[in-house]
């Protein structure tokens, strides 16, 4: 794969094997995974549980090391976590002792951005994610949906090269989830954010993404790389009736279940 200038993220031949001390054997989580993400592109990685999709995201974040292969972001090789790859976690991971405002301010403050500019940045993202009026609340005073909005704002305020999201909406109720998904597509469109999104929900991946990469079961390998050609902005009430949405979803379902079935028979 030849990197193109607009490729923000390049993963080359990522393999990950770790030792499971409970079962006392090696686990091959990922095998030879290569992909690129272009600027402003929204890419989802899906796959059955245990396919290594979260491991892949953690490797990109620099939180885990690959056994072999390398990840480049903006042409630089990843060796450790950094502000250019902000991550949103399923469990929100807001700092409980900081208010919404202080949580969102965290990244810009670490970077040493001055008070005035920092306030403007935080203000903008608080408003963008719809948390106006909740700036002085602590995370435990917010609902799950609001916490995840704050977590997204916290990363966006830090202006990362790529926004990493690890099943961010898995812990909220179904209705809140759909609303958060619509908000996320709107926000990333406005901000031209580059997103690498991990989920096990096929609907979610199709709804959000420009491209969906499906991994096969353990060890995770790329099973398909599907471009989602649907107009934006996307709304659930329109897409549920869209035939193309249904066909993308069916194609990915077949692909994932197919590999899972093969795996089980093997």
């Amino acid at each position, binding site marked *: 794969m030849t990197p193109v200038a607009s490729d923000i993220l390049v993963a080359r031949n990522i393999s990950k094997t770790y030792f499971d001390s409970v079962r006392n054997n090696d686990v091959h989580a990922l095998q030879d995974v290569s992909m690129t993400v272009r600027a402003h592109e929204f890419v989802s990685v899906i796959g059955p549980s245990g396919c290594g999709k979260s491991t892949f995201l953690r490797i990109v*974040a*620099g*939180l885990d090391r690959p056994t072999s292969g390398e990840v480049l972001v903006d042409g630089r090789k990843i060796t*450790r*976590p*950094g*502000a250019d*790859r*902000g*991550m949103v*976690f399923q*469990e929100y*991971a*807001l*700092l*409980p*002792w900081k208010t919404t405002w202080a949580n969102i301010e*965290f*990244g810009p403050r*670490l*970077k040493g951005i001055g008070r005035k500019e920092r306030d403007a940045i935080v203000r903008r993202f608080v408003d963008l994610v*719809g*948390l106006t009026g*909740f700036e002085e*609340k*602590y*995370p*435990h*005073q*917010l*609902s799950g*949906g*609001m916490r995840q909005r704050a*977590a997204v704002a*916290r*990363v966006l305020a*830090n202006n990362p090269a790529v926004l*990493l999201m690890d099943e961010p909406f898995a812990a909220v109720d179904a209705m809140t989830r759909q609303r958060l998904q619509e908000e996320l597509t709107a926000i990333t469109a406005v901000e031209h954010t580059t997103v690498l999104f991990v989920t096990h929900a096929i609907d979610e991946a199709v709804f959000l993404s420009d491209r969906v990469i499906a991994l096969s079961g353990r060890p995770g390998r790329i099973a398909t790389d599907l471009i989602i050609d649907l107009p934006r902005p996307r709304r659930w009430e329109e897409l549920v009736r869209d035939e193309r949405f249904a066909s993308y979803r069916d194609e990915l379902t077949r692909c994932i279940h197919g590999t899972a079935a093969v795996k089980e028979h093997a």
Partner: protein
Amino acid sequence: MTASEVSAEVMRPVPRARVLRWATDLLPFVVGVAIWQLLSFLEIWPRVLFPSPLEVLAAFAEDLRTGVLLVNLGVSLKSLGLGFVIGAIFAVPLGYLMGLNRFSRDFFDPLVNLLQAIPGLAWIPFAILWFGLGQGAVTFIIVMSVFFPVLHNLLTGIRMVQPVLIEAVQTLGAGRVAVIRHVIFPSTLPNLMTGVRLGIAFGFRSLVGGEMIASTDGLGYAIFNAQQYFQSARIVVGMLAIGITWLLMDRLILRPIELRTTLRWGLVREGLEST
């Protein structure tokens, strides 16, 4: 987004309920003293073995008037305060060092495990040998009593820091120093507070015991001395002074600190009934 999305709003008790709570708080004490007075009125036991509440009140007034009580209280609190501060000054940095550095953890862990099994009061003989009878010996005993609960709870706190919080701030650009400052320190605060409370409680117990054996003043010594002269009402005065002092310290110093930090952050709850 509506205000109803705010999951937990802080409830303020209305003043009326507050008065009622004071009353319910006091009730057991009133009943207890009434039974006590009744029993002593019946004179089942000799007065020197079982002083009445009125005698205790008289002794209390007398000790307050002569200033003996306050002087002894002052001596005790000074030993406790000094012992606590010294104990914490050693325990807190060692706790963070052991919690954050594998080498120092492996090195100190066996030592700490051995020493923490030894009660603070077991240090009395050495305390007397090294410092002589007096406040120095008592302070040393308190240091030994405070040190381990503080250290132990701090280490527990560091083990309980959520990895995802560390990872989250790392992806926001935090290095090791920022992780320690913004995640580890605040995360460990509830456990540190528990350690401080336990440390003071342990120190308080050792204080009384230590003063009885290794000192010539303080509340513990006062109790012990009163027994020598069969002034049993003054024994009770000393005991009550110890209990009330502890209660006041807990309510006026320790609880407010806890309220201002960990409860506000939602890290610990007041009790199961408030959920």
